[in-house]
C-alpha cells in the first residue's frame, strides 16, 4: 500500500531525525573532539589540542582506577544476589493464588520510586543511631557506622541496590517463566516428576536466555550508579564509594575539567558499548528480528 506521501512521512518522522542528530550523533562527535583538547568553560581562551594526553592521564590516574574497581566490586557483589532474589520472587509469585497481584505490585514497588527518595530513606535507616542499628542492638549484634565507615559504606549501598532492583528483574523473570510451554510441566508431572525435578530439568534450562538478559541489563545499569552515591556518601568516606560515573561527575562539575572528563566518559562509553553489544546479540532475535 502506498497511502502516505513522501512529505507527510518525513514530517511525521522528523522528530527522530532531529533528536538523533542533536542529542545523539552531534554530542557524540563534539565530545570526541573535546576529549583531545583541554576544553574548560571556566577558563578564558579557547581549547588547545592536546592529542591523547587526556586518555593517557586517565589511564595513569589512581583515582580513575580506584573508581573502576569500586564499580567492579559493586557489579560483582550485587548481581548474584539481585539475580537470585529476583528469580526466587518470580518463582514464588508465578503460580495462581489469591492476592498474587498484590505481592507482584509490592515487590515491584521500589522500582517505581525515585532513587533519590530510596537513598534518603536508606541514609536515615543507616544512620549510626538509626533504626537499623536499633534493630541490631536489640538482637545483640554489632552496630557499624555504615555509611560513615569506609569498610561498610559500599556494601551498605550495594545492599540497598539489591533490595530496590530485585522487583524489576522479578518481572523480567516472570515474563521468561510465562513463555515456557505448560505442556512440558504436564508431561513431566505424568512421569512422576517432583517440583524440584521440574525446576532443575525444565525451568532453569529454558530460563537461560532470560537469565543472561537479566545479568547483562543489570550490569549495564550498575556501571552507571550515581544518584545513590551522590545522595548517601558523596563518594566518601575516603573515596570508598566513588564509582566511575561519580568520578566523572566530580571531574566535570567540580573541577570543570571537561576535556579530561570527556576522555573518561569515552572510556566508560566503550566499556558500556561492549556490554550493550553483547546484550543486543542476546536479545537480537527477539527485538530487532521481530519486526523484519
Amino acid at each position: 500500500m502506498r497511502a502516505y506521501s513522501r512529505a507527510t512521512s518525513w514530517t511525521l518522522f522528523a522528530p527522530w531525525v532531529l533528536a538523533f542528530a542533536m542529542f545523539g550523533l552531534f554530542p557524540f562527535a563534539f565530545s570526541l573532539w573535546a576529549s583531545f583538547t583541554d576544553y574548560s568553560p571556566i577558563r578564558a581562551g579557547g581549547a588547545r589540542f592536546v592529542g591523547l594526553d587526556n586518555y593517557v592521564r586517565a589511564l595513569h590516574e589512581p583515582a580513575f582506577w580506584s573508581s573502576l574497581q569500586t564499580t567492579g566490586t559493586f557489579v560483582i557483589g550485587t548481581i548474584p544476589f539481585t539475580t537470585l532474589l529476583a528469580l526466587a520472587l518470580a518463582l514464588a509469585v508465578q503460580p495462581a493464588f489469591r492476592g498474587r497481584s498484590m505481592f507482584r505490585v509490592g515487590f515491584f514497588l521500589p522500582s517505581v520510586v525515585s532513587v533519590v527518595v530510596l537513598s534518603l530513606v536508606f541514609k536515615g535507616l543507616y544512620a549510626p543511631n538509626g533504626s537499623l542499628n536499633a534493630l541490631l542492638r536489640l538482637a545483640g549484634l554489632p552496630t557499624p557506622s555504615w555509611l560513615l565507615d569506609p569498610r561498610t559504606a559500599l556494601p551498605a549501598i550495594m545492599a540497598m541496590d539489591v533490595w530496590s532492583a530485585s522487583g524489576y528483574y522479578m518481572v523480567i523473570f516472570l515474563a521468561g517463566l510465562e513463555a515456557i510451554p505448560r505442556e512440558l510441566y504436564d508431561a513431566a508431572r505424568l512421569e512422576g516428576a517432583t517440583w524440584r525435578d521440574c525446576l532443575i530439568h525444565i525451568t532453569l534450562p529454558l530460563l537461560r536466555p532470560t537469565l543472561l538478559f537479566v545479568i547483562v541489563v543489570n550490569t549495564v545499569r550498575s556501571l552507571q550508579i550515581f544518584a545513590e552515591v551522590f545522595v548517601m556518601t558523596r563518594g566518601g568516606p575516603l573515596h570508598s564509594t566513588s564509582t566511575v560515573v561519580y568520578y566523572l561527575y566530580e571531574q566535570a562539575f567540580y573541577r570543570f575539567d571537561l576535556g579530561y572528563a570527556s576522555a573518561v566518559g569515552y572510556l566508560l562509553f566503550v566499556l558500556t558499548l561492549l556490554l550493550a553489544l553483547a546484550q543486543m546479540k542476546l536479545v537480537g532475535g527477539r527485538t530487532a528480528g521481530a519486526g523484519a
Partner: protein
Amino acid sequence: MTAATATPAALGERELAPPPPPWGASALRWLWLGPLLVSMLLPFVWMAAVSLSASSGGSLSRALSGPLGLDNYRALFGSAHLGRYLFNSAFVASLVVLLNVATAASVGYVLARQRVPGEKFWSFGIVATLMLPKQVLMIPLYLVMARLRLLDTYSALVLPFAVDAFSIFMVRQYVLGLPHELEEAARVDGASDWMIFTRIVVPLMSPVLAVVAIQSFLANWNSFLFPLIFIDSDRLRTLPVGLALLSQSEHSVDWGFLMAGSTVASLPVIAVFVAFQRHILSGLLAGAEK
C-alpha cells in the same frame, strides 16, 4: 530498557481467567511471602512514619511512640522552595510525557509501515540508543546544551527527553501487529494523509500510547542526573534534585521535613503504578513472550 513490548493481543482483550484457586492453598503461600513482603516494604513504612512525626529524629520507634500529625507536610507546602520544586517536576513531566507520546506515535508508526527510506539504518539507531543508558552521554549532552545556550532553562529539562527511543520502539512493535485494512479503506474513501493518521491510526494505537505515557511519566518524574547538571538556579530545580541538595545543606538534617518531601515525591508515581499496574506489568510480560 528491556525487550518489553506491548502487542495488540497483549493489551487488548484479556484471556478468560481460570477460576481463582482455593483460599487454603493461598493462605499457605501467604504465610511465608507475607513476612517477606512486609520486610521489603519496611523502608516505606519508616518514610511515612517519620514524615508524620514532629520529633522522631529519624527513629521509627520514637516516631511511632510520639504523636503523629501533618505538621511536616504543612511546613513543606508552606515553603516557597518545595512548592516550586513540585511545580517544576509536574510541569516538566507533563511536557515530556506529551511530547513523548506525540513523537513516539508519529515516528513509531512511520517506522513500522516503512514509509521512509533507510528503515534498517533508523531502526538500528533506535535499538542502539535504547540499549545504551543515557548517562554515558552525560558530558556530551552537557557540552551541547552549553553550546546551544540552553543550560539552566526549562528547555534543557524537556528537549533532550522529548523524543525517546524506547517509546518509539514500543509503538513500532505494536503497529507491526495492526492490520493495514482500515488505513487502506480510509484511503479508498478519499481521506487525506493527516486524517488517516489522526482519525484512524492514533485511536488504534491508543493502548500502546497509554503505556508510553505511563512509562515516560515514571522515568521523567524520577529523573535526577540531568536535572542536576543542567540546572543551576534554585527556581528551576525539580523535586528529586531539590530534595537531594536539601539533605546536604549545612544545617542538621530535619528528617521529618525531608521524609514528607520524599513521600510527596513518591505518591504520584506509586499512585500511577498501582492504578495502571496491569498495563505496566502486562506490557512487560507480553514482551518476552515473543
